[in-house]
């Protein structure tokens, strides 16, 4: 363990804090938290969320920072230093980060793709492209919406199932290449580069969020969405899933267990006050989630109102055309009276009309999470705003910065432990980082094939959950009981000058491990009882017009047990010292 000056350092504690913020505040704050908020009772979700933050998030975050700062090594080295038998924990973290790096930059590739396509006079996802005869829109696009078509067909060129492979999508591959080159540019000299970049990647997203907040609340109908979000449904608090989702969201949003925090902290000055910084970063992260969900709900409200009004307009036209009434007889104010009247006077003809159901609450209830929210729902809302190109550019640039900021942490989590090994320390920083980036990029090209999005979903949903929980559980039990809480206290006092108070000790030794064990048991139970894992597929030639799914369009459920089995078995691996099973990780932050 070197305590000397040969290890690079952050130029200032501010850089370290911004790096942690940049890492923790990622896409999950924008696309997972609003969904959870909506699912679990709006404003009421704050209670379990803040509770879990205090009980689980802040203590574990602080723990990882302490370890990194104390040991001044990456995750493998740090855990080996605590106990040689626990090197596997570090290795598991590195594997987790490696899996994450493979597929996370694909999202950045998509952000680049959308960003570049925003520089057109008409946004390509605003209108359906025409068919070969130029008589109308393409059939696939007409059945879905233009934004969905753009995402699934033009961006991904998705196949019908995971078994059907196709070639690499050139545009995607180029965007992925660019994403990796930008990542390399940000980390090329290790902490020296990263430290300067995080000033921008951590702060600019907030500028965009504020701009969007102002734009969002001034949009027509936005208030419906915000009201919907903040009306708490307290009965959701009685549902255990609410608390579990709050716990997992905090856990994954802070990026615990990947080794990135240990890596970042290892470049700190020995006497840096990480305790205060841990609290600050955790609260900034949660605050950003709440802030982003206000913006998201304003956008939802706008989109729902626009859809509702379009629906009413469609009904109005249908009524006018079917009953041959003059154009100005029915307008938005009297449409419902007219519907009643026509139903009474011409019941049979009225019944034959396919009016559909225009319901604002139903529109607001459509909850979406994940890439679907970021790339489909948001782009649909943006195309309806005036000056849509500007908003589009701003939005996708923000997504890009959020994603890149998180990538910095992920890559650093791999390169830092590698540099600690003697064989790699002779290789220059630039070359090592370049090799890691190149390796990840080449493997990541697999996600740009036509079935790539299904692989992405598999990695995203099943690639990591257990492992991270397990890793962090082992971490906290090790530090509290194997290393000893007393020794740890002394180390902290040595570093920051005072012992951690009773709050930290109770959390580390008692409450957090119990909570993690409970989460872990829940996940195992869910996995066993869940049966075969499933995924949603996009089927473009479904002849029958029935829509049955989540994306509100023609998707099919397909079971792919064999592949997931294969996947799970590749994901487990043994620690290099003892026969411990350390199971790999996931992303959610």
């Amino acid at each position, binding site marked *: *363990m*070197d*305590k*000397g*000056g040969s290890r690079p350092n952050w130029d200032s504690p501010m850089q370290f804090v911004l790096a942690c913020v940049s890492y923790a505040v990622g896409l999950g704050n924008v696309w997972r938290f609003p969904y959870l908020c909506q699912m679990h009772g709006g404003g009421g979700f704050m209670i379990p969320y803040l509770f879990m933050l205090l009980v689980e998030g802040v203590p574990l975050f602080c723990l990882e920072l302490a370890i990194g700062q104390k040991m001044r090594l990456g995750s493998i080295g740090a855990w080996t230093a*605590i*106990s*040689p*038998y626990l090197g596997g924990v570090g290795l598991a973290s590195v594997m987790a980060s490696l899996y994450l790096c493979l597929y996370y930059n694909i999202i950045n590739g998509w952000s*680049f*793709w959308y*960003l*570049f*396509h925003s*520089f*057109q006079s008409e946004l390509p996802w605003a209108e359906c*492209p*025409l068919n070969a*005869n*130029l*008589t*109308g829109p393409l059939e696939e696009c007409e059945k879905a919406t233009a934004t969905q078509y753009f995402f699934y067909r033009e961006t991904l060129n998705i196949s019908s199932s995971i078994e059907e492979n196709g070639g690499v999508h050139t*545009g995607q591959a*180029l*965007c992925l290449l*660019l994403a990796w*080159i*930008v990542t*390399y*540019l940000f980390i*090329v*000299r290790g902490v020296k*580069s990263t430290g300067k970049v995080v000033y921008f990647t951590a702060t600019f997203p907030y500028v965009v969020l504020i701009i969007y907040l102002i734009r969002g609340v001034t949009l027509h109908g936005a208030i419906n969405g915000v009201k919907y979000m903040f009306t708490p449904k307290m009965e959701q608090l009685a549902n255990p899933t609410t608390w579990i989702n709050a716990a997992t969201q905090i856990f994954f949003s802070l990026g615990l267990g990947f080794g990135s925090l240990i890596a970042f902290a290892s470049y700190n000055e020995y006497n840096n006050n990480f305790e205060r910084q841990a609290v600050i970063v955790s609260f900034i992260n949660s605050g950003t989630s709440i802030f982003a969900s206000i913006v998201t709900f304003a956008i939802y409200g706008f989109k729902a109102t626009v859809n509702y009004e379009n629906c009413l307009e469609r009904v109005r036209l249908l009524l*006018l*055309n079917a009953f*041959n*009434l*003059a*154009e*100005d*007889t029915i307008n938005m104010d009297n449409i419902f009276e007219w519907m009643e009247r026509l139903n009474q006077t011409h019941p049979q003809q009225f019944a034959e009309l396919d009016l559909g159901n225009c319901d604002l609450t139903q529109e607001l209830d459509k909850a979406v999470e994940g890439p679907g929210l970021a790339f489909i729902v948001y782009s649909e809302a943006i195309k309806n705003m005036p000056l849509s190109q500007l908003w589009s550019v701003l939005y996708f640039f923000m997504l890009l910065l959020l994603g890149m900021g998180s990538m910095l942490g992920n890559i650093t989590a791999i390169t830092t432990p590698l540099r600690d090994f003697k064989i790699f320390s002779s290789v*220059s920083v*630039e070359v090592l980082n370049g090799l890691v980036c190149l390796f990840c990029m080449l493997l990541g090209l697999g996600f740009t094939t036509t079935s790539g999005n299904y692989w992405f979903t598999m990695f995203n949903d099943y690639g990591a959950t257990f492992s991270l929980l397990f890793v962090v559980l082992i971490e906290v039990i090790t530090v509290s009981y*194997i*290393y*000893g809480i007393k020794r740890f206290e*002394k*180390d902290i006092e*040595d570093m920051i000058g005072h012992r951690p108070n009773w709050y930290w000790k109770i959390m580390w030794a008692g409450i957090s491990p119990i909570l993690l064990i409970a989460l872990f048991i829940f996940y195992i139970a869910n996995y066993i009882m869940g049966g075969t894992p499933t995924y949603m597929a996009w089927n473009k030639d479904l002849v029958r017009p029935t829509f049955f799914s989540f994306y509100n369009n023609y998707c099919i459920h397909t079971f792919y047990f064999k592949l997931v089995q294969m996947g799970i078995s590749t994901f487990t691996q043994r620690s290099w010292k003892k026969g411990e099973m350390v199971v790999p990780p996931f992303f959610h932050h």
Partner: protein
Amino acid sequence: MLEKVLFLLCLTPALAQEPCFPGSSHAYKVRISIKTALGNQAYVWNDNEMYLFRAAMAFALRSYHNGQEFNVSNIMVCNETPRVSFWFVVSSPENSSVLLKKGDVENAIRKSRNRINGAFLLTDQTLEFIDIPPTLAAPVMPVTPPWLIVFGVVMGAVGAGIIFLLVSSLVQSKRKKNKKTLDEDREDMRGIENGLGCDNLGGVYNTTFSDGDKFTPM
């Protein structure tokens, strides 16, 4: 046989009197939405406008069938509604009891669609011929897709940035190497150091670890 002849005889005059009826195999339905298209500047639909419509149809048919002189009287309109929708049929200029086939009428309309729309200040969506699909404007495809241009610019900038950083760090490390060889000559004179090993520091050793239990007992 006789009944059939009588039936046909009775039917023909009936047809001749009512060539235009909704659902006829020769008739097209037209739907006009003036207020949707023009809002405040909408004009009122009256007989004059209808005359203009019939004239526009005659024009379309004349341009399509070169030589045949269609007149306004060849265009018959029926079933006008307040919606402003109606049906029309076209009879041949030579023989007014013979109605033109739908296919011919459709082709004529499609050929002159823009002119007909222009006469009424409407568009394909507001002047609808039911069952005649509009011919939409072909999308303008630039030679290089615009996104590729932006991509190229960004890629170039980033590439230049990386090359600059790599070259500058190479130059820096070369400079350091030269400086180091110079320093090594003056090493003995200096008491203070940088970049040398910890052994020469003589600083304070952190005794926290060196209690003896360096490794955690399992």
